[in-house]
């Protein structure tokens, strides 16, 4: 019987009237159905990521080797720690949000204000953390070489650990500059030049007998990338097309281009949700301060934005699992 709707007209078309189908107010029910559709959008993205990962299952990048940075620990290999902190920040801002909703039920304006403020700060810290994560991902850590058929070749030392290009490549300091309009070359376009040329990388590689290369191919038994013996390395490097440092939508040093594309798209879409959540929270925060909901006699609006904010946290739980853990 709880689903029965009693018809009742109301002058305000967006107010939803006093009907409460399914026991929820108009606004709250619509927020639930918006969340349902948004959840399906996100799962569409994540499942598309899964599709591509299964398609390239034998050569997909290993997340632990990509996201290794930690603030104030330059060069340290610290996978997972940073993103774990980000997860905690978001979960904690969810806790303060639900505390604000709880205080709203008891009509405690000061408490709602305080918890809303904490939630906004948590969201802002998360956004900053994500920007830092993107910066590291875009900047890259080691550099690699791309072959003519698009595969990525990375350099490793005798222990099988990755080696940064700067640590062994000697640049010939060429005078060649990027072609841009400001240099009078309005008729050509060129992306930023990589710090080294393919020839410099190959020449330096030949001068370092301790180095070898590894391909994207995963060894199914050990779940590590395949290291090519040094004797065969040159036949790979002869196919080299360009030096790759960092990541963009066209090429990235970590491996498959689609990995970076999905990373930018899914974490970007999630980050955009966090941003809009923070903005909506700020609006509601000021409404709480000026007493809008006190006069209305109900803090249900805090509850509705709370639903959205928890949903953003919920999505992050899944992004965390599928990008960093699995």
């Amino acid at each position, binding site marked *: 019987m709880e*689903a029965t709707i009693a018809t009742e007209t109301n002058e305000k078309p967006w107010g939803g009237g006093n009907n409460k189908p399914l026991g929820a107010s108009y606004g709250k029910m619509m927020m639930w159905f918006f969340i349902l559709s948004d959840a399906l959008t996100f799962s569409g993205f994540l499942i598309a990521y899964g599709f591509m990962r299964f398609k390239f299952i034998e050569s997909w990048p290993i997340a632990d080797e990509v996201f290794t940075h930690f603030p104030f620990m330059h060069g340290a290999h610290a*996978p997972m720690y940073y993103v774990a902190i980000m997860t905690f920040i978001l979960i904690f801002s969810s*806790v303060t949000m639900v505390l604000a909703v709880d205080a709203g039920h008891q009509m405690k304006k000061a408490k709602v204000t305080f918890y809303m403020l904490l939630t906004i700060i948590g969201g802002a810290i998360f956004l900053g953390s994500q920007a830092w994560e993107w910066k590291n991902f875009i900047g890259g850590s080691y550099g690699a070489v791309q072959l003519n058929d698009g595969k990525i070749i990375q350099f490793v030392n005798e222990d099988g650990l990755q080696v940064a290009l700067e640590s062994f490549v000697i640049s010939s300091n060429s005078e060649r500059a990027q072609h841009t309009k400001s240099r009078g070359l309005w008729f050509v376009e060129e992306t930023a030049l990589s710090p080294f040329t393919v020839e410099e990388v190959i020449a330096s590689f030949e001068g370092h007998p301790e180095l070898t290369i590894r391909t994207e191919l995963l060894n199914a038994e050990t779940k590590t990338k395949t290291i090519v013996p040094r004797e065969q390395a040159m*036949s790979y490097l002869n196919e080299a097309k360009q030096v790759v440092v960092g990541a963009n939508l066209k090429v990235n040093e970590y491996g498959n281009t689609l990995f970076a594309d999905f990373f930018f798209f899914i974490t970007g879409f999630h980050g955009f949700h966090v941003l809009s959540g923070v903005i909506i929270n700020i609006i509601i925060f000021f409404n709480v301060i000026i007493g809008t909901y006190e006069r209305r006699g109900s803090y249900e609006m805090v509850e509705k934005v709370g639903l959205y904010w928890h949903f953003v946290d919920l999505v992050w739980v899944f992004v965390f699992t599928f990008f960093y853990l699995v």
Partner: protein
Amino acid sequence: MAAHAQEHKSHTKLIWKVFGILSVITIVEVALGIAKPEALHLTKILGTSPLNIIFLVLTLVKAYYITWFFMHMADETKSLRRAVVWTSVFLIIYLATLLLIEGSYINDVLGPLVKWNY
């Protein structure tokens, strides 16, 4: 679910308890993700490693706690809960099953054609 009887009572205790549960699960996930014990990481069960299945189950447990206690799904009526939860769970499982099977099929067909030696 007797929601209205408790509407004005504080749930602070429950909230902190749920936060504790979510934190513990996250710490376990991160610890396993860093340690990657070989017995869990390099063996295979149900088409993937036991580690991946653990991660998946823990994620779903976290999702349950967030939806039920932070989003107060537990206090909604049964029909609203089912309209939202059953719809999303069904559609997501459906799409994931189809696309992941299709992805492995494409891998079976294309994988052998990719050259890894030069």
